[in-house]
């Protein structure tokens, strides 16, 4: 055990958590983190928020400094791409042919941006937003008198729109679906965010498909919509979702299905090989089904699970999934997954920008979206984890104490 080697492929949140939890748990073997990017592990959520806005220095994005990794005897190697893994010989090979042997391997390979299959999407001022390099490249195109067109009204698109608009940019957001955030939330929350962004001056166009990106001298200068309208742009951001990085794992014979399949302890179907973070498809509490989660909480939870599994310790307790998004002065906190809800109630008043939507399926609370409503979020997390059959009218009644409701389902 003490001389075992753990190889972590990927250097994001899940990788950092796995390494940290291993050392915190007393693991004394060798730990190597291999990252494709030039940077050691850093936080991604601020990229589309405080970091893009210029309110957070780059140095504060990093989880740990170089001295910490050194003191913990963790090797962080950057600019390295693993191109294959051989489960039989327990070795991983880099693109340049270097071989790393392992006793345990963790796929923490994350995800990549979905690309827009359209001519012009490769022009130099067409960006994605996933890593530090992306944001540093986008930032000069954000500011007064600049036109930014964003394709995709998911969290990345809307958070970027909020920052860019605040910094004086003319922002247009194009969305194919009939509402923003269509994939992740209910029409009520979508309507709230559409209204919010429009009040700040963002031009939001739903049911809108792009027919061409037009460029000159290698740069995009306008976008033509299916309606025939042409919008000028100084830069374009594509935020149409991500794809999990599973190819190396799949080629190594690991079972994958829109994600590397792992059990409740983060183990793949091959012994001593694990997966954590965006790339993994896992058991989701409290729904008892498999899914792939794209969140910080997921990366941390799975990093801890994998570290425990490697050390032969019991799997840590799972929590219900949760997420957050900051746009303008609005904090959205999301507990659970609302995907297949069959009923909902609203608590609070959307006109005050302080309300929560609680979602039910078969009378059980399955999710909540809380807008500037931390108590509702915290209460929902507990009730969802407990699979509570809480009467919807209790939650809808703002005069009924959340603490009292939660106490009924301990």
């Amino acid at each position, binding site marked *: 055990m003490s001389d075992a080697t753990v190889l972590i492929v990927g250097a994001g949140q899940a990788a950092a958590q796995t390494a*940290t939890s291993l*050392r*915190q748990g007393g693991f004394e073997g060798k730990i190597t983190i291999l990252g494709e990017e030039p940077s050691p592990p850093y*936080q991604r*959520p*601020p990229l589309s928020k405080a970091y893009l806005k210029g309110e957070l220095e780059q140095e*504060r994005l990093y*989880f*740990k*400094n170089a001295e*910490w990794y050194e003191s*913990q005897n963790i090797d962080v190697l950057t600019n390295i791409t693993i191109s294959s893994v051989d489960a039989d010989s327990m070795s991983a090979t880099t693109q340049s042919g270097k071989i790393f042997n392992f006793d345990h391997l963790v796929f923490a390979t994350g995800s990549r941006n979905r690309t827009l299959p359209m001519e012009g999407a490769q022009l130099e001022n067409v960006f994605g937003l996933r890593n530090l390099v992306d944001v540093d490249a986008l930032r000069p195109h954000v500011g007064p008198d600049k036109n930014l067109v964003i394709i995709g009204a998911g969290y990345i698109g809307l958070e970027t729109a909020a920052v860019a608009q605040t910094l004086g940019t003319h922002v247009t957001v194009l969305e194919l679906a009939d509402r923003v955030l269509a994939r992740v939330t209910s029409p009520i929350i979508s309507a709230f965010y559409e209204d919010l962004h429009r009040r700040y001056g963002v031009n939001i166009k739903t049911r809108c498909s792009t027919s061409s990106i037009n460029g000159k001298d290698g740069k995009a200068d306008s976008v033509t919509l299916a309606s025939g309208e042409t919008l000028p742009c100084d830069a374009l951001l594509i935020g149409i979702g991500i794809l999990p990085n599973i190819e190396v794992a799949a080629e190594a014979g690991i079972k994958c299905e829109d994600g590397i399949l792992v059990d409740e302890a983060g183990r793949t179907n091959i012994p001593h090989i694990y997966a954590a973070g965006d790339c993994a498809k896992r058991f989701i509490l409290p729904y008892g089904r498999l899914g792939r989660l794209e969140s*910080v*909480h997921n990366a*941390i939870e799975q990093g801890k699970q994998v570290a425990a599994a490697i050390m032969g310790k019991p799997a840590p307790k799972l929590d219900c999934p*949760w997420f*957050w998004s*900051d746009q303008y002065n609005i*904090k959205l*906190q999301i507990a659970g997954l609302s995907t297949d809800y069959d009923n909902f109630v609203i608590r609070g008043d959307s006109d005050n920008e302080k309300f929560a939507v609680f979602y039910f399926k078969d009378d059980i609370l399955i999710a909540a979206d809380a807008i500037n409503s*931390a*108590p509702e979020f*915290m*209460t929902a997390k507990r009730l969802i984890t407990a699979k509570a059959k809480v009467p919807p009218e209790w939650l809808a009644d703002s005069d009924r104490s*959340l*603490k009292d409701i*939660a106490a009924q389902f301990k």
Partner: protein
Amino acid sequence: MPKILFMSHAGEEHSIEAKVGDSLMEAAVKNSIAGIDADCGGACACATCHVYIDSSYSALTGTPDDMEQSMLDFADEVQPTSRLSCQIPITEEMEGIVVRLPESQ
């Protein structure tokens, strides 16, 4: 570089040198203090950086704002001295401050 003492519920002590301007949470995470996960990275969204700070230090650390207070109201093992460490910026004057962790963390 003020010295800060983190103390686990079991009484285990961990003294660190913190950087002025970082939050107490950032200092804890950078030094790998077990029990401070800070899932949200300091966005006041998760309450996984919950700590206790004795009232004798409250002149240095201030008091929670509304958002922080409403997160704390629903956190586990809340006490009158509870704070979210992500909401406390470190200052030179905090030399020697003691930060205690809840049992469940």
